[in-house]
């Protein structure tokens, strides 16, 4: 992990998001569900591109994962995705091999944290 200090899930970011939509928790939940539904495909695309040695095809899914992870407060995954985006953009993916290797586990931890958060908010 390159960013061990970052929280897996920044609940303050989620609270901010909720505040920005007038405290509509149903909407935030819907958003998190959308994120949980879409992120696995982005993770898979990153792996596929890296395995094929096609750095250019990693840039976009990494970028999307970075930005949507940041939105739902998944800070650690957002930082990893950002590293992957920059590395693939600069054709330096081999230098970010640890990020690639840790991606799946980080995604699973993020998913678990978000599901636990939702279970907590929806009661």
């Amino acid at each position, binding site marked *: 992990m390159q960013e061990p200090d970052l929280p897996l899930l920044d609940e303050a970011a989620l609270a901010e*998001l909720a505040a*920005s939509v007038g405290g509509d928790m149903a*909407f935030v939940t819907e*958003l998190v569900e*959308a994120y949980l*539904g879409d992120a696995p495909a982005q993770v898979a695309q990153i792996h596929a591109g890296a395995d094929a040695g096609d750095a250019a095809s990693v840039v976009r899914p990494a970028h*999307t994962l970075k*930005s*949507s992870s940041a939105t739902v407060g998944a800070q650690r995954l957002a930082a990893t995705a950002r590293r992957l985006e920059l590395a693939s953009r600069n054709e330096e993916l081999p230098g970010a091999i640890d990020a690639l290797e840790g991606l799946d586990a980080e995604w699973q931890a993020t998913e678990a944290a978000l599901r636990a958060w939702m279970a907590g908010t929806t009661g």
Partner: protein
Amino acid sequence: MSTGIALVVDDSRVNRLVLARQLEALGLDVLEAENGIEALERLRAHPTEIDVVLLDVLMPELDGYQTLEAMKADEAIRHIPVIVVSAVEELESVVRCIELGATDYLPKPIDPAILRARINASLAAKRMHDLEQEYLDRQTALTRTIQRQKEELGRFLSPQISALISSSEGEALLSGHRRQITAVFCDLRGFTTFAEQAEPEELFGVLGAYHRLIGEAIVEHEGTLEHFAGDGVMTFFNDPVVQPDHVERAVRMALAVRERFQPLTADWRKRGYELGLGIGIAVGYATLGRIGFEGRYDYGAIGNVVIMASRLSSAAGPNQVLLTQRGVAMVEGLFEMEDVGELNLKGMTRPVPAHNVVGAAAHEPAVDGLRDDRAVADHV
């Protein structure tokens, strides 16, 4: 109430949801697109409805740059403001987007206050553009209406008056001037009786044929039609277009009208109407210009010459073309005439000497300007 329509273009559903939600909170209706291709489809389907585009840069299919380029190349959608949504660390791509024609940029994560400010600025710019466009459209429509009305008007006016309206000296001529003219007045003998007895369809049929005939002759001889009043038609020459040969033109027109009138009389006689044509021609000074009131103006001639032509026309027997003494002198040798003596005309204090124009001279002068007096002498 919707304050506008925004198109959110982002391949991330999460980002689209957040942005759409925030835009809706600002009172906007939101359309979404997952990539540039979809965005262009939506824009082209609603070129006038979409007020602002929020564009992500990194997308599959067609990215933000290509989308901007395609928008700017399309006349119908190039004016729609584009706000690039981008992380602060991607400032370089923002610069490129602005060079490609983006209006503004919105840093991620999105701050609602900044979003509101950017959206309001873009909507204001769009409204300004729309107003400008509306103004231009209205101008174009107005110009088209004026052009059409001018053409319509042309059908009511003689070609000379119609051209005068569009000319630079038009205003000066319309405001009034004095000039020598030849006035020609045509009317029908027996028309009042006919008008009282005939059915409206017949009346208008006869009038229509008569007016058509005179109208064609006026255009051919480049006369200025002053007005139609039932069977009375007043025309003059030498104004607004100057015609050195105005008397000759007037007489030739009168002869053409009389000649073409004969087949009509024959036809009418078969149907039981006895109608004859009387023409009076006078030469003299008149005041010419715009006469009337706002909404109904005529280009008219005022002066004794006009009254004289009208009175001569009334005095003329069927198929007579009566010309005043001054007119006779100005076309000497060109036409065969007979002296009809001095006429006592209604409203005239003194008797008026006049000639009846029988027709064109048997042989017209061979050299211009040289008039052969003997030609007249031979035929009188």
